[in-house]
């Protein structure tokens, strides 16, 4: 162990020659687990894997190995991105390529392992094998990079996610980790680093898309005795789990990016602000920081370069608005997480009044690659105005739920249909929401839109942090808007009145149009209608008069669904109909008198006593009492109940 660390430090990190000697290569192969003596079983054990039952799979594997008396190592790795197919388990036999299996639940373990150890692969669960030089490939097994989910992707930030051991600094360094950082502190001044990053045209991935290098330069050029770096991992918008997945799967990559950024701006302290609930990500990150410190890559006088860096973990107590940079700073200072006025921008006066740079996790994870391969290399990837790649999470009604990375310039059609595998259960695509509650919807006709900051802005949407939520024909656009407005309304910090009160009014109005008014006095009807008339205006006012991005983007979802799905709103308002059948209170059920046997089952179950009738005679639903809950519909054995 000691030995390995010393080897990695002296022969690998401090050795900046392009090619290693044969001897070093051989040793690296061992540390990369390419040369092994006993089999290794890698189990995808990040949040998604664990929920799918990875822990049970691991104990089944242990039982199997014990019973068959096979010696093998089990390593818990992160997520390769195909969350829908978890638990994913890779097996590597000495001399053979690593092979990956999907949906390996505890009951499938014996069967699959039998197959692998006897050289007869059961094909149902095979995901594919990795392309590895010098290792023998399996016959008749496809390569994992040929699977459509991976083939269209361009993985930079996610390169080793789910592949390397997230709790082993040795493994990370053996795969080229921390080389960029060591190169940086030995060969570049902080000013050089700012310039290189500026030249790469890397834009912030946290939402605003501001050029990272430019921002760093401002902090770098502001005179101060102390500067801070803050890594923004608050990520609280529903449907996004990029940062969490990256940290769980490859925490050292982020530490390396943070270390380089801190060096560039001259910060001795770096904070990471991560939501308290992400316990696995926090514990993996903490462990990684300790390992890096023990290795001498963090702490005082790093590798005798004179550079000091301390990384502090701040557990965010759960507020969406704390993702906004100035609110985050308030929260780190121990106050309510409320946004402040800008300017002064945090790059000039931020945390504790000192110059502070706030960057997103994904932004920082790009840095090591830029430092290692140069800005020109990075500039070749992507489009004219957007360089590099972008990570997205796919969720909702899509087949391949998960986390994916594509080159800028890829269109959403490819992301949804090729990588995402299209819509679940044979349904049809209706729209996708990009950027969570502050985002906009992209409709079917516009799926040819490219992943590009400018192009997305021209369409009237925002890239956001990269959450894609896919909706099919069973999603009601009014309902989903209501859901997002409800979220914003709860998360509004309360500082600006238009945002605090306005979003509440919007929610109320939306709630009213998804209900059938009952027992309504005439002035209430008037108010309801006035609300409908004013909805669009409120949305505009909130947008124009709020201080921070939360309020400024609060009405995005509403305005974009109204633009593209106005007919659905009108149907709700004028016809009291929800075509997706989601708005339960707009449904009214009827009984088909020819089919009803009068069994009385529905009448007994109805919570509103809206069904009347005599046993053995057809029943009847009192329309004014029915709330559309659908219990009778589920209860009826004779399909006599229908919705109109």
């Amino acid at each position, binding site marked *: 162990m000691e030995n390995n660390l010393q080897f990695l430090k002296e022969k690998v990190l401090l050795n900046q020659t392009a090619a290693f000697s044969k001897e070093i290569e051989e040793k690296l192969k061992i540390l990369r687990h390419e040369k092994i003596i006993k089999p290794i079983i890698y189990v995808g054990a990040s*949040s*998604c894997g664990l*929920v*799918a039952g990875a822990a049970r799979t691991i104990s089944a594997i242990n039982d199997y190995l014990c019973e068959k008396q096979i010696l093998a190592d089990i390593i818990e790795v992160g997520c390769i991105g195909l*969350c*829908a197919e*978890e638990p994913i388990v890779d097996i590597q036999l000495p001399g053979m390529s690593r092979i990956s299996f999907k949906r390996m639940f505890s009951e499938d373990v014996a069967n699959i392992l039998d197959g692998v150890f006897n050289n007869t692969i059961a094909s149902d669960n095979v995901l594919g094998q990795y392309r590895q030089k010098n290792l023998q490939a399996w016959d008749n097994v496809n390569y994992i990079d040929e699977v459509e989910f991976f083939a269209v992707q361009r993985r930079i930030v996610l390169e080793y996610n789910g592949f390397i051991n997230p709790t082993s600094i040795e493994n990370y360094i053996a795969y080229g980790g921390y080389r960029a950082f060591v190169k940086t502190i030995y060969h570049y001044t902080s000013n050089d680093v700012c310039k290189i990053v500026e030249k790469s045209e890397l834009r912030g991935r946290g939402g605003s898309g501001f050029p990272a290098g430019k921002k760093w330069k401002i902090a770098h050029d502001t005179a101060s005795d102390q500067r801070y770096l803050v890594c923004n991992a608050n990520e*609280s918008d*529903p*449907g996004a*789990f990029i940062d*969490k997945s990256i940290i769980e799967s490859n925490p050292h990559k982020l530490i390396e990016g943070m270390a380089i950024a801190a060096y560039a701006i001259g910060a001795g302290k770096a904070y990471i602000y991560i939501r*308290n*609930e992400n316990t696995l990500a926090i514990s993996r990150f903490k462990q990684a920081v300790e390992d890096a410190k023990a290795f001498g890559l963090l702490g005082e006088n790093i590798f005798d370069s004179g550079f000091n860096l301390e990384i502090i973990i*701040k*557990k965010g*107590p*759960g*507020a969406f608005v704390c993702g906004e940079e100035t609110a985050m700073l308030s*929260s*780190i*200072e*121990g*106050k*309510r*997480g409320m946004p402040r006025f800008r300017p002064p921008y945090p790059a000039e006066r931020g945390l*504790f009044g000192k110059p502070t740079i706030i960057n997103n996790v994904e932004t920082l994870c790009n840095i090591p690659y830029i430092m290692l391969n140069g800005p020109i290399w990075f500039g070749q990837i992507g489009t004219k105005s957007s360089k590099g790649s972008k990570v997205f999470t796919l*969720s*909702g*009604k899509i087949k391949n*739920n*998960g986390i994916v990375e594509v080159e800028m310039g890829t269109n959403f059609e490819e992301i949804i249909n090729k990588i995402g595998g299209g819509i679940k259960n044979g349904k049809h695509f209706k729209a996708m*929401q990009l950027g*969570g509650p502050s985002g906009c919807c992209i409709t079917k006709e516009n799926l040819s839109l490219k992943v590009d900051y400018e192009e997305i802005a021209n369409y009237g949407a925002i890239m956001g942090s990269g*959450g894609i*939520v896919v*909706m099919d024909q069973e*999603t009601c656009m009014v309902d*989903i808007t209501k*859901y997002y407005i409800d*979220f914003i309304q709860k998360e509004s*910090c309360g500082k600006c009145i238009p945002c605090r009160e306005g979003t509440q009014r919007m929610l109320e109005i939306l709630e009213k149009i998804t209900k059938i008014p009952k027992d309504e006095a005439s002035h209430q009807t008037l108010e309801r209608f006035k609300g409908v008339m004013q909805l669009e205006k409120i949305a505009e006012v909130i947008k124009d008069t709020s201080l921070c991005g939360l309020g400024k983007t609060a009405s995005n979802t509403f305005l974009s669904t109204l633009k593209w799905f106005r007919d659905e709103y009108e149907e709700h308002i004028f016809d009291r109909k929800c075509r997706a059948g989601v708005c339960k209170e707009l449904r009214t059920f009827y009984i088909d008198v020819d089919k009803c046997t009068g069994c009385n089952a529905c009448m007994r179950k109805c919570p509103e006593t809206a069904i009347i009738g005599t046993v053995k005679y057809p029943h009847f639903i009192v329309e004014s009492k029915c709330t559309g809950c659908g219990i009778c519909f589920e209860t009826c054995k004779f399909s006599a109940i229908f919705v109109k």
Partner: protein
Amino acid sequence: MADNIDEIIGKYSNAGRSDLLDALQEIQEFNGYLSEDAVVKLSKQFNLATTKIYGIASFYDQFRFVQYGKFHIKVCNGTACHLSDSKPVIKELEKLLRIKHGQTTRDAMFSLEEVPCLGSCGLSPVMSINNEYYAAVKTADIKDILESLKKSDS
């Protein structure tokens, strides 16, 4: 691990304002919630008014001022779960337990919480009870789940 709140607060004797949230988190982790007693003690330690501390703590979703039940139920209402009908699950739980989300039953048996995302969107709707996950929950099953928990306890 500390034995009592005093010990936890004692650790913050040299702390500044920026450590307040950490202190609150540590107390909640230990106790399950923030008691009046704890807030009063913290206010002395940090030299801040109790109202100020309450004001900060109540701003954040994480902090609670009532104890969790023996079984703490979290229902995910993230987008994916919302699209696969998590609201009826919450409604059903509220109906059966006779509490609203954020509350604890009088016998301190169950508490209910609606959470933004449990990170398992592929298995929606998801709920977790004391960190045991239940995937693809149906409203019809909830009664049985609660009954079996009650049984397992007695």
